[in-house]
């Protein structure tokens, strides 16, 4: 091709060399997506032609350009360096934000979809300015957290489901195996001649329930990974078919009688009822590896154990634990209010502590003392129970020591309360002022301890009083309508009396009232 005479295939303009033609094609006809520059609209007709040719051929999808800043000679400036842009070729739009930049300030590439939005998955690479690049999500978010809880749950659920399926499979095999064995046993029951035949049939059945692993391919126990040898014999688990050892200490597999197994998993749909058919003495047992045993029976044993109530010292210990929980939750509250009171009295030595705070403090202290008392009583009961075996004796001793240590440790702040009050009392004694009765009252409050019976009675009284209050109120309403004003005076007096009584009862009850 003659390099001097190249013409544009679209608009037939002539160019001096190929490079000029390429630039012409890129700029005027926008043939190159990556090298697209700001649009010059001087060849609309040509563009239209181009579109036609494109639509006749394969459709080319183009990046959105409506948001691009128009190039104006002499006026446009680069948004990065602020230099005036005088040359169309040296200026370009950021493909994302559309702002004009000089070409060397569009060094970054970003993946955009056709609407000029960041799309890391399906987008194509385009130039963009530094701003857009640094603003893209994930560029600079240090310390950002991604919540993977959902993913985690998904995986966990999947694993759980897998395990459940596995358990179901093993259970099915187990039921089939047990049913089959019992059927065979019943068939040949009692006849010694058929003993061999029976064993034969049983081992045949065992192999149909699960495929046995080939002996030769396995050199390690599936559970404990010990190498098999002359002393360590190979055995097949009858449920999973894996080869395991029967080491007595490691407990990898065991021969377990089927009657016992059936009673341990009595909820499975066996053909025979272990109790009804008295199958406990059936001398048939199967070998199970510890994996399968735990898969099938561990959950059952757990739920059974949880269902049965604790006995003896364990029940006692549980209630002790509950009480210690109460104490642990109350102690910080108590210490807080004690500290408040201390700082209050430290600031103003003469001022009597706020009775409300003191009341609160007293209340919490009572609760704590009661809890300690209960804890102590329970400990004593527990220690006095007759131990059933040596382990229980040991347990009792340990619990005794632990509970003594616990009480000693926790009761310490309680002892400091009378200390904070007694100097108070001395002070007011010196003053000989009306502070003294108040302190007396406070100390009285301090040791006024409501028993459960008293609380019940007070609650009952409060309920009755409130009922009566309501009753009187409605009577007053009725009398008001009848204009019986004299009676209303009497009733109002009574109402006041009731209310003051309610108040007294409520303050007596304190926190033990209805919430």
């Amino acid at each position, binding site marked *: 091709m003659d390099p001097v005479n190249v013409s544009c295939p679209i608009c037939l303009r002539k160019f001096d060399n190929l490079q000029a033609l390429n630039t012409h094609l890129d700029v005027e006809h926008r043939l190159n997506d990556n090298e697209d520059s700001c649009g010059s609209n001087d060849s609309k007709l040509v563009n239209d032609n181009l579109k036609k040719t494109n639509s006749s051929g394969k459709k080319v999808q183009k990046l959105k350009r409506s948001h691009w800043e128009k190039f104006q000679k002499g006026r446009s400036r680069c948004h990065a360096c602020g230099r005036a842009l005088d040359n169309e070729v040296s200026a370009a739009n950021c493909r994302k934000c559309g702002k004009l930049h000089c070409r060397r300030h569009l060094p970054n590439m970003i993946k955009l979809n056709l609407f000029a939005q960041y799309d890391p998955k399906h987008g194509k690479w385009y130039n963009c300015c530094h701003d857009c690049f640094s603003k893209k999500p994930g560029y600079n978010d240090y310390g950002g957290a991604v919540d993977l809880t959902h993913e985690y749950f998904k995986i966990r659920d999947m694993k759980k489901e897998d395990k459940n399926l596995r358990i179901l499979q093993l259970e099915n095999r187990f039921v089939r195996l047990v049913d089959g064995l019992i059927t065979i046993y019943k068939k040949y029951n009692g006849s010694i001649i058929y003993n061999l035949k029976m064993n034969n049939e049983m081992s045949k059945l065992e192999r149909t329930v699960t495929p046995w692993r080939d002996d030769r391919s396995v050199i390690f126990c599936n559970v404990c990974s010990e190498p098999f040898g002359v002393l360590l014999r190979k055995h097949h688990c009858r449920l999973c078919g894996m080869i395991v050892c029967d080491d007595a200490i490691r407990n990898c597999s065991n021969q377990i009688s089927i009657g016992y197994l059936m009673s341990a998993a009595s909820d499975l749909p066996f053909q025979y009822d272990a109790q009804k058919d008295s199958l406990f003495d059936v001398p048939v047992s199967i070998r199970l590896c510890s994996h399968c045993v735990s898969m099938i029976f561990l959950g059952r044993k757990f739920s059974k154990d949880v269902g049965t109530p604790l006995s003896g010292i364990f029940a006692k210990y549980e209630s002790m634990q509950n009480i210690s929980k109460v104490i642990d939750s109350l102690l910080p509250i108590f210490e807080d209010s004690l500290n408040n009171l201390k700082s209050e009295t430290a600031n103003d030595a003469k001022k009597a502590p706020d009775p409300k705070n003191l009341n609160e403090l007293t209340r919490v202290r009572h609760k704590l003392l009661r809890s300690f008392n209960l804890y102590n009583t329970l400990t004593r009961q527990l220690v006095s129970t007759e131990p059933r075996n040596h382990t229980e004796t040991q347990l009792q001793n340990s619990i005794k020591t632990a509970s003594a240590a616990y009480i000693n440790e926790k009761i310490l702040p309680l002892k400091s309360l009378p200390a904070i009050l007694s100097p108070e009392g001395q002070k007011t004694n010196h003053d000989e002022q009306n502070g003294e009765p108040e302190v007396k009252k406070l100390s009285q409050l301090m040791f006024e301890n409501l028993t459960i019976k008293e609380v019940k009675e007070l609650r009952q009284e409060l309920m009755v009083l409130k009922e009566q209050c309501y009753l009187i109120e409605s009577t007053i309403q009725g009398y008001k309508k009848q204009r019986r004003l004299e009676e209303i005076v*009497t009733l109002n007096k009574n109402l006041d009396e009731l209310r003051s009584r309610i108040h007294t009862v409520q303050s007596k009850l304190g926190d033990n009232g209805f919430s």
Partner: protein
Amino acid sequence: MLQFKLVLLGDSSVGKSSIVHRFVKDTFDELRESTIGAAFLSQSITIHPNDGNEANPKDVVIKFEIWDTAGQERYKSLAPMYYRNANAALVVYDITQEDSLQKARNWVDELKNKVGDDDLVIYLLGNKVDICQETPVVETSPESNEAGNDEQKVRAISTEEAGQYAQDQGLLFREVSAKTGEGIKEIFQDIGEKLYDLKKDEFLSKQNRQINGANNGQVDIHLQRPSTNDPTSCCS
């Protein structure tokens, strides 16, 4: 007018509310529901103080503020509020119920311990005499079958027994029937007269003071209807 506070006490379902309703409204309800808390009623009576040559021939109106308490154990804590400051207490028992008298005795003891006021008039009332009047004479008629079963229709507490007790304790005593109204009016007359005797001096001095006060600075209030001639008045 004199005002007295009166309280009714006694075991549940002995007929306290029935007595009060017979007195206040002169009605009797066979199927009365048990009282909740304490009900308030008031009634006035007129007594004729006939203490001879006293210079007070006028009738005296006495108004009773009656607190009818509930007999159920649950409401026991309310009672002190109502018998405190009371002028009279009616302690009611059921003559067909053996233990209701014991309850009544407990109430009397409590009143004497807690109130300790000599001015308190305690009246012991045996209710439901109508039941026993019928029993020996005629067969039980269905409509009078108030208690519902036969063994309850027998008198369990003799008049002598209760009367003796009342005498020992210095109580007023009467057997009444709220159903027939027998003796009900008399109770309140008795109480009124007794209280009048006790409070007579107080009352008279108060009355005198009122008379004096009226003489000194009584304001004469004329209630006048608005003139109908006033064109702006809304009343015509």
